[in-house]
């Protein structure tokens, strides 16, 4: 976490329903520290954008309370919340020039014209668009437009910035570049950023912490590396990064080390999440890069038949069919070290027990 530790944004048991029957956001509790970069990650309809819109004031929470800097926002109109916001489609005003767009938040605050001009000039330089002030937004490329939107959200020095899938409309190369730019801006300015995306790699690249949303509630909130290495639910395991998932039956529980039986009866070991009694069927997940082909005997878990080897340049993916019919993928950096890999042949697969997770939930 960069910046201070004071709580900046707080969701207290916030619920939102549109139809009175189902909860779009369900009992959301969340605190964001001052200067933190927090990403709301989740599939569409998971409640992440609704939560952001409630924070911005465009949606009203059905119950619960949202606080910014300790102050309840329930009676604060959206235009008085002093939040910079960046939209997916940029939302640049098409009837104004770039400079007029950026000056807009200053002029509605009554900043004198001369000061407006100098601040607009400075922020345009910061997003490397110094020469574009007189253009119309429609004359800029998508990446440039998003930089203008960013400049417009920064120019009035808000301490909280919300970004709603700001890079969703851009191509991959531009997205990678702007991700870094936004990250550097965050580090320089020390503002709090709440960022909404459905792109897990974007979330992992940029954030101090990632909140994974599903079905209106946060599944897990943690730093990117913690999230990746220690997913708390099968949903997080499947949504963040790649994972092989299949069901196994619990045969023994020793603390958090569980012994399970695969559907084909192979004994295997995994880290157990939650508490679980023997005999239950639970989802088990292991990442492709943690799958070991022809392991040492103490790590051997299952047997599977090699179906396909897919060359990716820096690595090769091996697709296996397990005895009970699931597909598992192994990501291998140096396939030539494994000896011959004949397609159609069954071979042992394994993993270190700490790399495999079984979920009681």
């Amino acid at each position: 976490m960069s910046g201070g530790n004071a709580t900046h944004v707080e969701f207290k048991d916030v619920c939102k329903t549109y139809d009175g029957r189902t909860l779009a956001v369900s009992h959301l509790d969340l605190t964001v520290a001052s200067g933190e970069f927090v990403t709301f990650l989740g599939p569409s309809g998971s409640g992440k954008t609704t939560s952001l819109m409630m924070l911005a004031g465009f949606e009203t929470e059905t119950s619960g309370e949202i606080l910014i800097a300790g102050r309840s926002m329930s009676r604060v109109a959206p235009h008085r919340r002093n939040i910079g916001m960046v939209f997916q489609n940029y939302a640049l005003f098409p009837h104004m020039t770039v400079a007029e767009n950026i000056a807009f938040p200053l002029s509605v605050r009554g900043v004198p014209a001369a000061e407006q001009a100098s601040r607009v000039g400075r922020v345009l330089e910061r997003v490397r668009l110094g020469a574009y002030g007189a253009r119309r937004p429609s004359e800029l490329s998508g990446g440039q437009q998003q930089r203008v939107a960013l400049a417009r959200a920064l120019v009035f020095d808000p301490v909280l910035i919300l970004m709603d899938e700001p890079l969703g409309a851009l191509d991959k190369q531009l997205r990678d570049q702007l991700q870094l730019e936004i990250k550097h801006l965050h580090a320089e300015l020390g503002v709090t950023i709440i960022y909404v995306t459905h792109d897990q790699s974007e979330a992992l690249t940029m954030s101090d912490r990632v909140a994974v949303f599903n079905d209106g509630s946060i599944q897990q909130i943690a730093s990117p590396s913690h999230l990746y290495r220690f997913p708390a639910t099968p949903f997080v395991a499947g949504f963040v990064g790649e994972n092989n998932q299949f069901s196994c039956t619990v045969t023994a529980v020793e603390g958090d080390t569980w012994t399970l039986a695969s559907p084909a009866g192979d004994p295997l070991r995994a880290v157990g999440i939650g508490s679980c009694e023997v005999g239950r069927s639970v989802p088990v997940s292991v990442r492709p890069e943690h799958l070991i082909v022809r392991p040492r005997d103490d790590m051997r878990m299952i047997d599977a038949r090699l179906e396909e080897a897919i060359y990716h340049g820096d690595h090769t993916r091996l697709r296996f069919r397990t005895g009970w019919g699931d597909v598992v993928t192994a990501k291998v950096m140096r396939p030539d070290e494994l000896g011959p890999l004949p397609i159609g042949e069954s071979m042992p697969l394994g993993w270190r027990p700490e790399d495999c997770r079984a979920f009681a939930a």
Partner: protein
Amino acid sequence: MTAGAVTTARAAPGGPAHRPLDASLGAQLRRADRGRQIRALLLVAPLLLFLFVNFALPLVLMLAKSIDGREEARALARTGAALASWDGRSAVPDAAAKALVADLGDLRGTPALSMVANRLNYDVNGMRSLVLKTARRLPPSGDATLAALGSIDPLWQRPEQWAAVLRATDRITSFHVLAAVDARRDPAGGITMLPPQQGVMREIFLRTFWIASVVTLACIVLGYPVAYLIASATPGWASVMMMAVLLPFWTSLLVRTSAWVVLLQTNGIVNKGLQGLGLTSAPVPLVFNRTGAYIALIHVLLPFMILPIYSIMKSVKPDYVRAAVSLGASPVTAFRRVYLPLTLPGLASGTLLVFVSALGFYITPALIGGAGDQMIGFFIAYYINDTVNWGMAAALGGLLLLSTAVVFLVYTWLAGSSSPAWRS
């Protein structure tokens, strides 16, 4: 591009000789395009022909009527020639009197006499009876002097009557066009405006523009919020409301206007309702006056305002207003500085549609307005049907067309300067 480059390279590598080749390529392109253009032209030819025969040609012929003085000039040919050198003020030469007697002699007993008499009467009041009386008592042609005419009616001694005769002998006349703006030629040939109490056309034009402006303004005030409501409603409600807007739009204009007469009359449902609610004790005059005309015109023209605004509003994403609000604009500021400018093109085309339609409205004010609420369309019809003064009707129509063109030019100029490269 590629094909051209290949051809060039093959013919003359790097030489200036590629020019003729390019030219023939251009000619090929033009030939191919010409084929397409001709096909397109043939496809629209029936429509163009229809428009020409039924719209452009009648329009031109009708407009020509406003300056056409050939019939009168032919009927008074000899008089015209005799008066050609007269200065309009001094004594009228006897030759002119003689020529007039000869012309009237030929006209006597033909419909053209009445036509000439009417035309002179439009110019100077009383000329119709003067001409008809003179034609009845024509002196023998040998004795046709000014004095002889003067003995039939002393009015012939005055130059004003002769000036009117002279004006009626122009083959191309500005008479009707000037009359349409309350102006006329003085005996010396200059243009003078009629004194206000005599001129009615200026007042009618001002009234027409005033009524059109009031109706347009009311349509903006009433239509903009309705368009916003429809544009921001859920699809189900939006289609219900759109139906409510379109249903009257599909009903005959005459039916709707007559319905308003029934609703607004002294014992109509509106007055009964007002009295039933205790808002008035006696019936309010709502029909055959300006109020009724406004109500009916606004009702008839409102869809023309709502529809263009609605279609523009549908294209304005809600994110624009949200962005403005998130940047610190109050809802009023966000509306004024973002939403209104973005919907302005719809407002402008709605305003143009309503204003131009209102300018030319005839049926509704004619049926529901009072005598003092008639617009220019009523008077055009009046000159066509009642007084059969087609020259005047044509001049008024031309003037209305001109006003519409000016309004349209102002619109395109405003639309061109304020909006937008970004819409294209």
